């Protein structure tokens, strides 16, 4: 016995919930990208303590499950005397977490530019930041694109974890619809198709970019493999 059947209304409810998944993914992409630039800069900075700081950041966020990070932000901030709403907790956690992955991608791209270019820029009298901006980044940028598109797929999938702190995105909407219709095959099948429709084009695009970029610079920049729980 179920309260209602899976019909067009339920389908539209799921489609409507997908916009929150998309919005959260876009926020994560933008915020994580910005943090990633900062982390990558620290990671290759000439000062050793700064590099260690970046390594610790990356190790923590890649080496623990994102769900724990999310719980820590959502439930744990009561220690500081406030309770964020699920949206804030999820957006902040995902941005900080994605920052570690973006940081590794950016660093990989920067390090793929041959070492000799740093040395020649130095011999021309350019400082660290100027070398980075004028010589290294223009070449590194095109190497960053394929793994960044790949990371976007991971981010879309990872947003589903936010349903576990009660954020009303696609996965949580699916649980709600499943509770009233009890047609799990239809509900989770539909939601899987929606996620697939969001992710697959990006995956194909990433693969195509990767193939096209092969052999541009000897070292290929790879998407870091560790993306917890996606």
């Amino acid at each position, binding site marked *: 016995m179920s309260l209602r059947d899976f019909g067009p209304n339920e389908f539209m409810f799921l489609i409507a919930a997908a916009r929150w998944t998309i919005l959260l993914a876009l926020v994560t992409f933008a915020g994580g990208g910005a943090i990633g630039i900062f982390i990558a800069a620290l990671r290759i900075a000439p000062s050793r303590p700064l590099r260690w700081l970046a390594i610790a950041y990356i190790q923590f966020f890649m*080496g*623990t*499950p994102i769900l724990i990070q999310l*719980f820590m932000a959502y439930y*744990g901030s009561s*220690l500081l005397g406030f309770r964020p709403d699920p949206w804030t907790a999820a957006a902040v956690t995902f941005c900080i977490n994605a920052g570690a992955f973006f940081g590794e991608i950016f660093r990989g791209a920067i390090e793929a530019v041959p070492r000799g270019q740093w040395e020649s820029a130095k011999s021309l009298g350019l400082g660290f930041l100027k070398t980075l901006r004028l010589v290294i980044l223009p070449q590194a940028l095109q190497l960053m694109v394929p793994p960044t598109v790949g990371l976007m797929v991971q981010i879309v999938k990872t947003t*589903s974890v936010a349903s*576990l702190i009660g954020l009303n995105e696609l996965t949580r909407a699916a*649980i709600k619809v499943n509770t009233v219709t009890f047609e799990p095959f239809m509900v*989770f099948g539909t939601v899987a198709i929606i996620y697939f429709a969001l992710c697959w084009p990006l995956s194909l695009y990433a693969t195509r970019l990767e193939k096209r970029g092969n052999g541009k610079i000897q070292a290929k920049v790879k998407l870091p493999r560790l993306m917890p729980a996606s």
Partner: protein
Amino acid sequence: MQNLQFGPVFAHSDAFIDGVISTLVLAALSIFFGTMIGLLGAIGRSYGPRILSAPIGAYVEIIRNTPLLIQLYFVFFTLPLVGIKLSSNWAAIVALSIHLGAYAIEIIRAGIDSIPQGQIEAAKSLGLRPYRIVRHVIVVPALKAVYPSLTAQFILQIMGTSIVGAIAAEELTAIANNLVMQTFRSFEIYIVIAVIYFVIVQSASLLFAGIGRLLFQWKA
């Protein structure tokens, strides 16, 4: 601002130990089954009959482009409808194995593709039987080539087990959530859990590196 109090957290250290054991069992079983799926799938896709290629490819793409959480719910809610009743933990193992299987197929296939065709022809011309060729000329060198990627995926799998509490399976994160409700020391508990996961992940990396050395050192 409250003070950090770890006392009530460590009073429940036996619960943490149970959690660690459950998490390791979930991870180990799903890694075993997932790798088996990966091996069979990769061999089937590269050397099996052509009919197999499309379904295996579809399986890989579907799993890799949908969230683990949805796969988990799908397995947990639909299996009983077709008459398969599993406990939460076994449903989690099934979902996690199916999940890892898709990634393992992709990874192992990359290894198989890296083996030169001439090597297989050489083995044939030496009169090796098909089973010997698959084992010694294809699978072992392929696994050696992709071992680092494969174990990175295993590490990911260990962290992925943290979300199976969503279907009421028992593991470290779910046990932590129970403790949070009992003690209200949420921040302390999640800090401890994060450290435990971190230690598990780092030890697993070391362990996999060690196993890799043992397994492949004579097979250069």
